């Protein structure tokens, strides 16, 4: 090792000691930070470059990126087993925003509040900051932002002189009309995600909200409007039985539905912002034929709202290098890093200013529009028990959608089960 390198690592060693870390590395030993994340979508993964940048800024520090399982449910199990009651082998972790209260309450995350500068979180979407906050403390830095969108085929709607629908009823009407006139048996009406997984809960929540039926209220009441909730489920099931949505909807996740729409086989699609980049990419069958709008509401009901989502970066409470880990999280959520990620991996930034960034807008002129919709989005229930709630309702929703249970019974069963499990927590 060169004299310079040796000196630098010594310096880091001293710095780390000064930072008051227990178990500081031995003399001259380089610090390794482990970063757990799911591989970011996109062919040009910008992450390795960003990590190398951080290493260049912090001589003597090595960052090791470790990939996680791909689905949100598998990731959650990974964290639960790995973090519960022990030192995990990583310092910085990517987490789905819905987990923040749970992880914070369990004591797995480092409280970032003391590390933050005043106003540091102001540039982020208020909703992402809210989902990174629990018990008035901040536990993670928002990394990317997601919001449910309704994609539609501009060419087909224009052909029949239609405006994008703002209610589900209008959407069904338009789908019928267009499919009737197009006479293309391969053309489906409306695609969404009905497979039994977290994505299903998001889709059903959007339908519940549009029908004025919350899943769980702030004071913990479960399905306070059971009749409206059942009605929303019946409506979703009706989309499938009436043929507006294909039967395989009950096995569809984001990618399956995105692909079918991208191949030109559907008029409407509910999906996240990343889909737009793929539709507009070279060789896409629907290039320049797609636009998005807000998730519809119901006729005589509330206006629609897309569910928000996204990933945060947190620091393990047992990290041996908390200062450096916070610095890494900060580096990766910086404006520069988020711009690189938005350019390379199609993930939407959690910083609002980037939606009006000239470079990004040039690449994706819909950014300002997306900004407005993201601001209007609605979060899933913010509770430490979110995963328990979601895992409990998933099979019930799924049973109603595939038609093995009447919607009323599905809601009743979900209420009974949730009542029991949440009761056990008190």
């Amino acid at each position, binding site marked *: 090792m060169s004299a310079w390198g040796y000196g630098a690592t010594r310096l880091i060693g001293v710095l780390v000691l000064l930072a008051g870390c227990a178990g500081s590395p031995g003399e001259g030993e380089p610090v390794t930070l482990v970063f757990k994340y799911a*591989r970011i*979508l996109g062919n040009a993964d910008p992450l390795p470059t960003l990590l190398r940048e951080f290493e260049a800024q912090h001589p003597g520090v090595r960052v090791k990126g*470790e*990939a996680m399982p791909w689905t949100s449910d598998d990731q959650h199990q990974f964290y639960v087993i790995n973090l519960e009651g022990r030192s995990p082998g990583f310092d910085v972790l990517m987490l789905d925003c819905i987990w923040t209260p749970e992880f914070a309450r369990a004591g797995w995350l480092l409280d970032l509040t003391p590390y933050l500068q005043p106003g540091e979180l102001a540039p982020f979407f208020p909703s992402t900051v809210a989902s990174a906050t629990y018990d008035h403390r901040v536990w993670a830095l928002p990394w990317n932002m997601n919001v449910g969108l309704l994609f539609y085929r501009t060419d087909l709607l224009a052909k029949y002189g239609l405006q994008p629908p703002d209610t589900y009823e209008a959407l069904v009407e338009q789908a019928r009309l267009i499919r009737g006139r197009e006479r293309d048996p391969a053309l489906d009406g409306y695609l969404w995600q009905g497979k039994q997984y977290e994505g299903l809960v998001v889709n059903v929540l959007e339908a519940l909200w549009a029908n004025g039926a919350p899943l769980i209220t702030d004071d913990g009441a479960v399905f306070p409007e059971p009749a409206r909730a059942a009605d929303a489920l019946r409506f979703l099931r009706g989309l499938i039985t009436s043929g507006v949505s294909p039967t395989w909807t009950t096995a569809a996740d984001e990618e399956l539905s995105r692909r079918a729409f991208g191949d030109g086989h559907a008029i409407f699609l509910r999906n996240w912002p990343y889909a737009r980049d793929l539709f507009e990419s070279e060789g896409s069958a629907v290039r320049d034929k797609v636009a998005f709008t807000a998730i519809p509401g119901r006729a005589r009901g509330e206006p629609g709202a897309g569910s928000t989502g996204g990933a945060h970066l947190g620091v393990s409470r047992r990290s041996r290098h908390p200062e450096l880990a916070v610095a890494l999280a900060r580096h990766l959520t910086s404006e520069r890093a988020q711009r690189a990620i938005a350019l390379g991996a199609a993930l939407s930034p959690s910083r609002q200013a980037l939606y009006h960034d000239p470079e990004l807008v040039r690449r994706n002129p819909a950014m300002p529009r997306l900004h407005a919709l993201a601001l209007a989005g609605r979060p899933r229930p913010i509770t430490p028990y979110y995963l328990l709630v979601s895992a409990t309702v998933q099979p019930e929703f799924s049973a109603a959608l595939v038609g093995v249970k009447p919607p009323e019974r599905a809601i009743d069963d979900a209420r009974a089960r949730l009542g029991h499990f949440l009761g056990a927590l008190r």
Partner: protein
Amino acid sequence: MRPATRTLADVVVIAALAAYAIPFFWQLLTSFKPEAELLRIPPLLPSRLTLSHYRVVLEQSLMPRALLNSLGIATLTTTVALVVGLPGAYAVARRPVPGKRWLLLAIVASTAFPQIATVSPLYLLMRGLDLRDTWTGLVLVHASFALPLTVWLLAGFIREIPIEAEEAASVDGAGLVKTFRWVVVPLLAPGLASTALLTFLFSWNEFLFAYTFTVSEASRTIPVALALFPGVFEVPWGDIAAASMLASLPPVLIVVALQRFLVRGLVAGAVKE
């Protein structure tokens, strides 16, 4: 039957069983198919064969490390189970042990033990001993789970050894350890091989415990790595096919090269009483 008919019958049986193994061969073919042709059938056969999926799996995934973990854990499990189980099996087969009937019943009963029944306490135990995500933890669990079958099989094989050989040795003044080492073990070799193979396969294939107790590349075994094989945009069918071929490599080698021992062990496990 005339010889020609006989040969025809033999060919038909082999063809039928080869057809039975099509799921495996289809995956084997898939693992060599170019990416662009994966979702496009017909034609069934690819225009050319490629190693690109294997390259991805070996260079960019956890698989090589998982192979190493599985190899290590399965070998250690086999060793531990044999070392611990052999004396026990000898006692069961040869010695008057008080309450032997109950002991045998307990051994049989524990071969029927469902993994799910002990996974929650074992999780707490692993957590308490800080053995999560280590080879040691998984080896302990696998070995103890395999132990009843190991003892059962070995006891059966020991009973097959003519007792006269041991008696002759003890007449010659050889102690228990010596008799064991120089008389029992050599005669037992084929039985040991059969038992070792079955234990190895159990550990190699085991999923529920491995999925629960391993979290990172430090100890993740191959079935778990395969089950969680990451996809980015879409399911990487070709890479998964290559990975599953790697995961079934040792079982396939055993079946092809050591079939005799495998069948012997399988049959012995069911029949010996």
